[in-house]
Protein backbone atom coordinates (compact mmCIF):
# COMPACT_ATOMS: atom_id res chain seq x y z
CA UNK A 1 0.00 0.00 0.00
CA UNK A 2 1.43 3.36 -1.03
CA UNK A 3 1.80 6.25 1.45
CA UNK A 4 -0.92 8.10 -0.52
CA UNK A 5 -3.36 5.22 -0.02
CA UNK A 6 -2.55 5.00 3.66
CA UNK A 7 -3.17 8.72 4.00
CA UNK A 8 -6.47 8.39 2.10
CA UNK A 9 -7.63 5.54 4.34
CA UNK A 10 -6.76 7.61 7.44
CA UNK A 11 -8.62 10.62 6.03
CA UNK A 12 -11.75 8.58 5.28
CA UNK A 13 -11.65 6.82 8.63
CA UNK A 14 -11.34 10.17 10.39
CA UNK A 15 -14.28 11.73 8.54
CA UNK A 16 -16.42 8.64 9.26
CA UNK A 17 -15.49 8.75 12.94
CA UNK A 18 -16.42 12.42 13.15
CA UNK A 19 -19.78 11.71 11.45
CA UNK A 20 -20.43 8.81 13.87
CA UNK A 21 -19.53 10.96 16.89
CA UNK A 22 -21.97 13.65 15.77
CA UNK A 23 -24.74 11.07 15.27
CA UNK A 24 -24.09 9.56 18.71
CA UNK A 25 -24.08 12.99 20.37
CA UNK A 26 -27.36 13.78 18.64
CA UNK A 27 -28.96 10.59 19.93
CA UNK A 28 -27.72 11.24 23.48
CA UNK A 29 -29.47 14.62 23.38
CA UNK A 30 -32.58 13.15 21.71
CA UNK A 31 -32.96 10.38 24.32
CA UNK A 32 -32.52 12.92 27.09
CA UNK A 33 -35.25 15.10 25.52
CA UNK A 34 -37.54 12.06 25.01
CA UNK A 35 -37.10 11.07 28.65
CA UNK A 36 -38.03 14.57 29.83
CA UNK A 37 -41.03 14.68 27.42
CA UNK A 38 -42.32 11.25 28.50
CA UNK A 39 -42.06 12.19 32.20
CA UNK A 40 -44.02 15.39 31.66
Amino acid at each position, binding site marked *: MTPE*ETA*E*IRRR*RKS*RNIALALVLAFFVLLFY*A*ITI*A*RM*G
Partner: protein
Amino acid sequence: MSVMTATASATPLPAEWRDFFALTKPRVMSLVVFTGLCGLLAAPGNIHPVIGFTAILCIALGAGGSGALNMWLEADIDARMKRTEGRPIPSGRMRREDARDFGVMLAVASVGIMGVAVHWLAAGLLALSIVYYAVFYTLWLKPRTPQNIVIGGGAGAFPPLIGWVAVTGDITAMPLLLFAIIFLWTPPHFWALALFVKSDYANAGIPMLPVVRGERTTRRQILAYSVVLLPVTLAPWWIRGAGAVYGVSALALSLAFVALSVPVGLRTSTAADAMTPEKRLFKFSILYLFALFAALVADRMLVGAAA
Protein backbone atom coordinates in the same frame (compact mmCIF):
# COMPACT_ATOMS: atom_id res chain seq x y z
CA MET B 1 -15.61 9.31 -11.66
CA SER B 2 -13.97 6.52 -13.68
CA VAL B 3 -10.60 7.22 -12.03
CA MET B 4 -12.29 7.11 -8.63
CA THR B 5 -14.02 3.82 -9.50
CA ALA B 6 -10.81 2.21 -10.69
CA THR B 7 -9.00 3.26 -7.51
CA ALA B 8 -11.82 2.09 -5.29
CA SER B 9 -12.11 -1.34 -6.85
CA ALA B 10 -8.34 -1.89 -6.94
CA THR B 11 -7.86 -1.33 -3.21
CA PRO B 12 -10.57 -1.85 -0.57
CA LEU B 13 -10.77 1.72 0.71
CA PRO B 14 -13.33 2.24 3.44
CA ALA B 15 -16.50 3.91 2.14
CA GLU B 16 -17.01 7.59 2.94
CA TRP B 17 -19.89 8.78 5.10
CA ARG B 18 -21.36 10.43 1.99
CA ASP B 19 -21.74 7.00 0.42
CA PHE B 20 -23.68 5.76 3.46
CA PHE B 21 -25.85 8.86 3.19
CA ALA B 22 -26.45 8.14 -0.53
CA LEU B 23 -27.67 4.63 0.41
CA THR B 24 -30.62 6.19 2.22
CA LYS B 25 -31.98 7.73 -1.04
CA PRO B 26 -32.20 11.28 0.40
CA ARG B 27 -34.54 12.59 -2.33
CA VAL B 28 -37.10 9.86 -1.72
CA MET B 29 -36.70 10.50 1.98
CA SER B 30 -37.68 14.17 1.62
CA LEU B 31 -41.11 13.21 0.20
CA VAL B 32 -41.48 10.54 2.90
CA VAL B 33 -40.72 13.11 5.62
CA PHE B 34 -43.19 15.58 4.10
CA THR B 35 -46.12 13.15 3.85
CA GLY B 36 -45.32 11.63 7.26
CA LEU B 37 -45.25 15.10 8.81
CA CYS B 38 -48.58 15.97 7.15
CA GLY B 39 -50.16 12.80 8.55
CA LEU B 40 -48.84 13.73 11.98
CA LEU B 41 -50.03 17.36 11.79
CA ALA B 42 -53.44 16.51 10.32
CA ALA B 43 -54.28 13.88 12.95
CA PRO B 44 -56.70 14.86 15.70
CA GLY B 45 -55.08 15.16 19.12
CA ASN B 46 -51.85 16.50 20.49
CA ILE B 47 -48.35 15.13 20.47
CA HIS B 48 -45.38 16.53 22.38
CA PRO B 49 -43.08 18.29 19.87
CA VAL B 50 -40.10 16.15 20.90
CA ILE B 51 -42.12 12.93 20.48
CA GLY B 52 -43.51 14.20 17.15
CA PHE B 53 -39.98 15.01 15.97
CA THR B 54 -38.84 11.54 17.04
CA ALA B 55 -41.72 9.93 15.11
CA ILE B 56 -40.75 11.77 11.90
CA LEU B 57 -37.08 10.97 12.48
CA CYS B 58 -37.96 7.26 12.83
CA ILE B 59 -40.05 7.35 9.63
CA ALA B 60 -37.07 8.96 7.84
CA LEU B 61 -34.58 6.44 9.31
CA GLY B 62 -36.89 3.55 8.38
CA ALA B 63 -37.15 4.86 4.81
CA GLY B 64 -33.36 5.24 4.73
CA GLY B 65 -32.95 1.65 5.95
CA SER B 66 -35.35 0.45 3.24
CA GLY B 67 -33.35 2.38 0.64
CA ALA B 68 -30.07 0.83 1.82
CA LEU B 69 -31.57 -2.69 1.82
CA ASN B 70 -32.96 -2.03 -1.65
CA MET B 71 -29.49 -1.01 -2.91
CA TRP B 72 -27.96 -4.08 -1.25
CA LEU B 73 -30.49 -6.40 -2.93
CA GLU B 74 -30.46 -4.66 -6.32
CA ALA B 75 -26.74 -3.95 -6.75
CA ASP B 76 -26.60 -6.23 -9.81
CA ILE B 77 -29.62 -4.57 -11.44
CA ASP B 78 -28.31 -1.08 -10.57
CA ALA B 79 -25.02 -1.89 -12.32
CA ARG B 80 -26.92 -2.52 -15.58
CA MET B 81 -28.78 0.82 -15.69
CA LYS B 82 -27.31 4.26 -16.49
CA ARG B 83 -29.44 6.02 -13.89
CA THR B 84 -28.20 3.80 -11.06
CA GLU B 85 -24.72 2.61 -12.09
CA GLY B 86 -23.09 5.43 -10.11
CA ARG B 87 -24.61 4.28 -6.79
CA PRO B 88 -22.13 3.37 -4.03
CA ILE B 89 -22.14 -0.43 -4.55
CA PRO B 90 -22.14 -0.77 -8.38
CA SER B 91 -19.49 1.97 -8.66
CA GLY B 92 -17.24 0.02 -6.29
CA ARG B 93 -17.10 2.66 -3.55
CA MET B 94 -18.72 0.39 -0.98
CA ARG B 95 -18.82 -3.30 -0.12
CA ARG B 96 -22.22 -4.90 -0.60
CA GLU B 97 -22.30 -6.30 2.95
CA ASP B 98 -21.73 -2.83 4.40
CA ALA B 99 -24.95 -1.63 2.73
CA ARG B 100 -26.82 -4.63 4.16
CA ASP B 101 -25.50 -4.05 7.69
CA PHE B 102 -26.21 -0.33 7.50
CA GLY B 103 -29.77 -0.96 6.23
CA VAL B 104 -30.53 -3.54 8.93
CA MET B 105 -29.14 -1.23 11.61
CA LEU B 106 -31.29 1.71 10.45
CA ALA B 107 -34.40 -0.48 10.16
CA VAL B 108 -34.00 -2.04 13.61
CA ALA B 109 -33.09 1.27 15.27
CA SER B 110 -35.99 3.16 13.69
CA VAL B 111 -38.58 0.56 14.69
CA GLY B 112 -37.13 0.19 18.20
CA ILE B 113 -36.99 3.92 18.90
CA MET B 114 -40.48 4.43 17.44
CA GLY B 115 -41.85 1.71 19.74
CA VAL B 116 -40.13 2.85 22.92
CA ALA B 117 -40.52 6.61 22.44
CA VAL B 118 -43.73 7.00 20.43
CA HIS B 119 -46.13 4.08 20.00
CA TRP B 120 -45.81 0.36 19.32
CA LEU B 121 -48.61 0.35 16.72
CA ALA B 122 -46.75 3.06 14.77
CA ALA B 123 -43.56 0.97 15.20
CA GLY B 124 -45.36 -2.13 13.89
CA LEU B 125 -46.57 -0.22 10.81
CA LEU B 126 -43.05 1.12 10.25
CA ALA B 127 -41.65 -2.44 10.42
CA LEU B 128 -44.38 -3.59 8.02
CA SER B 129 -43.53 -0.79 5.56
CA ILE B 130 -39.83 -1.73 5.59
CA VAL B 131 -40.56 -5.45 5.04
CA TYR B 132 -43.15 -4.52 2.38
CA TYR B 133 -40.61 -2.45 0.43
CA ALA B 134 -37.46 -4.51 0.90
CA VAL B 135 -38.92 -8.01 0.66
CA PHE B 136 -42.43 -7.95 -0.81
CA TYR B 137 -41.70 -5.27 -3.46
CA THR B 138 -37.96 -5.33 -4.21
CA LEU B 139 -37.30 -9.06 -3.96
CA TRP B 140 -40.58 -10.62 -4.96
CA LEU B 141 -42.90 -8.51 -7.12
CA LYS B 142 -40.72 -5.90 -8.87
CA PRO B 143 -38.96 -8.45 -11.08
CA ARG B 144 -42.18 -10.43 -11.72
CA THR B 145 -45.11 -8.19 -12.63
CA PRO B 146 -45.63 -5.07 -14.77
CA GLN B 147 -47.95 -3.87 -11.97
CA ASN B 148 -44.80 -3.43 -9.81
CA ILE B 149 -45.26 0.35 -9.66
CA VAL B 150 -48.76 -0.09 -8.23
CA ILE B 151 -47.41 -2.37 -5.50
CA GLY B 152 -44.38 -0.15 -4.91
CA GLY B 153 -46.76 2.77 -4.38
CA GLY B 154 -47.97 0.94 -1.28
CA ALA B 155 -44.51 1.38 0.28
CA GLY B 156 -44.62 5.13 -0.34
CA ALA B 157 -48.14 5.31 1.06
CA PHE B 158 -47.17 4.22 4.59
CA PRO B 159 -45.61 7.48 5.97
CA PRO B 160 -48.83 9.54 6.43
CA LEU B 161 -50.50 6.50 7.98
CA ILE B 162 -47.60 6.04 10.42
CA GLY B 163 -47.50 9.79 11.20
CA TRP B 164 -51.23 9.78 11.94
CA VAL B 165 -51.08 6.65 14.12
CA ALA B 166 -48.13 8.14 16.06
CA VAL B 167 -50.58 10.80 17.32
CA THR B 168 -53.84 8.87 17.68
CA GLY B 169 -52.58 5.38 18.52
CA ASP B 170 -55.26 3.71 16.39
CA ILE B 171 -56.07 3.08 12.73
CA THR B 172 -59.27 4.76 11.51
CA ALA B 173 -60.76 5.52 8.08
CA MET B 174 -58.87 8.82 7.68
CA PRO B 175 -55.28 7.49 7.79
CA LEU B 176 -56.34 4.61 5.55
CA LEU B 177 -57.68 7.15 3.03
CA LEU B 178 -54.36 9.03 3.13
CA PHE B 179 -52.69 5.70 2.39
CA ALA B 180 -55.11 5.09 -0.50
CA ILE B 181 -54.48 8.57 -1.98
CA ILE B 182 -50.70 8.03 -2.32
CA PHE B 183 -51.27 4.43 -3.42
CA LEU B 184 -53.49 5.55 -6.33
CA TRP B 185 -51.38 8.64 -7.12
CA THR B 186 -48.13 6.71 -7.64
CA PRO B 187 -48.97 4.82 -10.89
CA PRO B 188 -50.02 7.85 -13.00
CA HIS B 189 -47.11 9.86 -11.52
CA PHE B 190 -44.51 7.24 -12.33
CA TRP B 191 -45.90 6.02 -15.66
CA ALA B 192 -46.12 9.61 -16.97
CA LEU B 193 -42.37 9.80 -16.30
CA ALA B 194 -41.80 6.36 -17.82
CA LEU B 195 -43.46 7.49 -21.06
CA PHE B 196 -41.00 10.33 -21.73
CA VAL B 197 -37.83 9.04 -20.10
CA LYS B 198 -36.39 6.19 -22.10
CA SER B 199 -35.08 4.06 -19.29
CA ASP B 200 -33.08 0.86 -19.57
CA TYR B 201 -35.23 -1.21 -17.23
CA ALA B 202 -35.62 -3.73 -20.06
CA ASN B 203 -31.83 -4.31 -20.06
CA ALA B 204 -32.00 -5.00 -16.33
CA GLY B 205 -34.87 -7.48 -16.72
CA ILE B 206 -37.44 -5.40 -14.83
CA PRO B 207 -40.90 -5.70 -16.47
CA MET B 208 -42.03 -2.05 -16.54
CA LEU B 209 -45.54 -1.56 -17.91
CA PRO B 210 -44.67 0.61 -20.99
CA VAL B 211 -42.09 -1.98 -22.05
CA VAL B 212 -44.13 -5.12 -21.39
CA ARG B 213 -47.69 -4.04 -22.25
CA GLY B 214 -46.94 -1.11 -24.55
CA GLU B 215 -47.61 2.60 -24.54
CA ARG B 216 -51.35 2.36 -25.26
CA THR B 217 -52.11 0.25 -22.18
CA THR B 218 -49.92 2.49 -20.02
CA ARG B 219 -51.83 5.59 -21.20
CA ARG B 220 -55.21 3.98 -20.49
CA GLN B 221 -54.07 2.97 -17.01
CA ILE B 222 -52.75 6.48 -16.25
CA LEU B 223 -56.20 7.86 -17.07
CA ALA B 224 -58.00 5.12 -15.11
CA TYR B 225 -55.97 5.71 -11.94
CA SER B 226 -56.44 9.50 -12.20
CA VAL B 227 -60.23 9.08 -12.47
CA VAL B 228 -60.35 6.69 -9.49
CA LEU B 229 -58.10 9.04 -7.50
CA LEU B 230 -60.64 11.90 -7.70
CA PRO B 231 -63.40 10.41 -5.48
CA VAL B 232 -60.83 8.93 -3.08
CA THR B 233 -59.28 12.38 -2.47
CA LEU B 234 -62.78 13.74 -1.76
CA ALA B 235 -63.64 10.93 0.65
CA PRO B 236 -61.97 12.59 3.70
CA TRP B 237 -64.37 15.51 3.17
CA TRP B 238 -67.42 13.25 2.76
CA ILE B 239 -66.74 11.31 5.95
CA ARG B 240 -66.15 14.66 7.71
CA GLY B 241 -62.55 13.77 8.47
CA ALA B 242 -61.54 17.06 6.84
CA GLY B 243 -63.28 20.37 6.27
CA ALA B 244 -64.19 22.60 3.32
CA VAL B 245 -60.67 24.02 2.89
CA TYR B 246 -59.42 20.53 2.15
CA GLY B 247 -62.56 19.51 0.21
CA VAL B 248 -62.48 22.45 -2.21
CA SER B 249 -58.69 22.16 -2.66
CA ALA B 250 -58.95 18.39 -3.30
CA LEU B 251 -61.76 18.90 -5.82
CA ALA B 252 -59.89 21.62 -7.74
CA LEU B 253 -56.55 19.77 -7.68
CA SER B 254 -58.02 16.39 -8.63
CA LEU B 255 -60.11 17.86 -11.46
CA ALA B 256 -56.93 19.47 -12.82
CA PHE B 257 -55.15 16.11 -12.45
CA VAL B 258 -57.87 14.33 -14.44
CA ALA B 259 -57.91 17.15 -17.02
CA LEU B 260 -54.16 16.77 -17.57
CA SER B 261 -54.47 12.95 -17.67
CA VAL B 262 -57.11 12.95 -20.43
CA PRO B 263 -54.77 14.07 -23.26
CA VAL B 264 -52.08 11.69 -21.98
CA GLY B 265 -54.57 8.82 -21.78
CA LEU B 266 -56.18 9.28 -25.17
CA ARG B 267 -53.39 10.30 -27.50
CA THR B 268 -50.77 8.28 -29.32
CA SER B 269 -47.21 9.54 -29.51
CA THR B 270 -45.43 9.92 -32.80
CA ALA B 271 -41.76 9.52 -33.63
CA ALA B 272 -39.72 12.47 -32.29
CA ASP B 273 -42.68 13.45 -30.12
CA ALA B 274 -41.98 16.26 -27.62
CA MET B 275 -44.16 14.41 -25.05
CA THR B 276 -45.43 17.75 -23.72
CA PRO B 277 -48.69 16.43 -22.13
CA GLU B 278 -46.76 13.67 -20.32
CA LYS B 279 -44.14 16.10 -18.99
CA ARG B 280 -46.88 18.48 -17.90
CA LEU B 281 -48.75 15.72 -16.06
CA PHE B 282 -45.59 14.49 -14.34
CA LYS B 283 -44.62 17.97 -13.12
CA PHE B 284 -48.15 18.66 -11.95
CA SER B 285 -48.37 15.30 -10.14
CA ILE B 286 -45.56 16.35 -7.77
CA LEU B 287 -47.13 19.74 -7.10
CA TYR B 288 -50.50 17.99 -6.70
CA LEU B 289 -49.39 15.71 -3.87
CA PHE B 290 -47.61 18.51 -1.99
CA ALA B 291 -50.61 20.85 -2.37
CA LEU B 292 -53.16 18.20 -1.39
CA PHE B 293 -51.37 17.27 1.83
CA ALA B 294 -50.60 20.92 2.61
CA ALA B 295 -54.34 21.65 2.22
CA LEU B 296 -55.15 18.86 4.65
CA VAL B 297 -52.79 20.32 7.25
CA ALA B 298 -54.04 23.88 6.64
CA ASP B 299 -57.60 22.61 7.09
CA ARG B 300 -56.71 21.04 10.43
CA MET B 301 -54.86 24.19 11.58
CA LEU B 302 -57.87 26.39 10.74
CA VAL B 303 -60.26 24.06 12.57
CA GLY B 304 -57.88 24.03 15.53
CA ALA B 305 -57.63 27.84 15.49
CA ALA B 306 -61.44 28.23 15.31
CA ALA B 307 -62.11 25.77 18.16
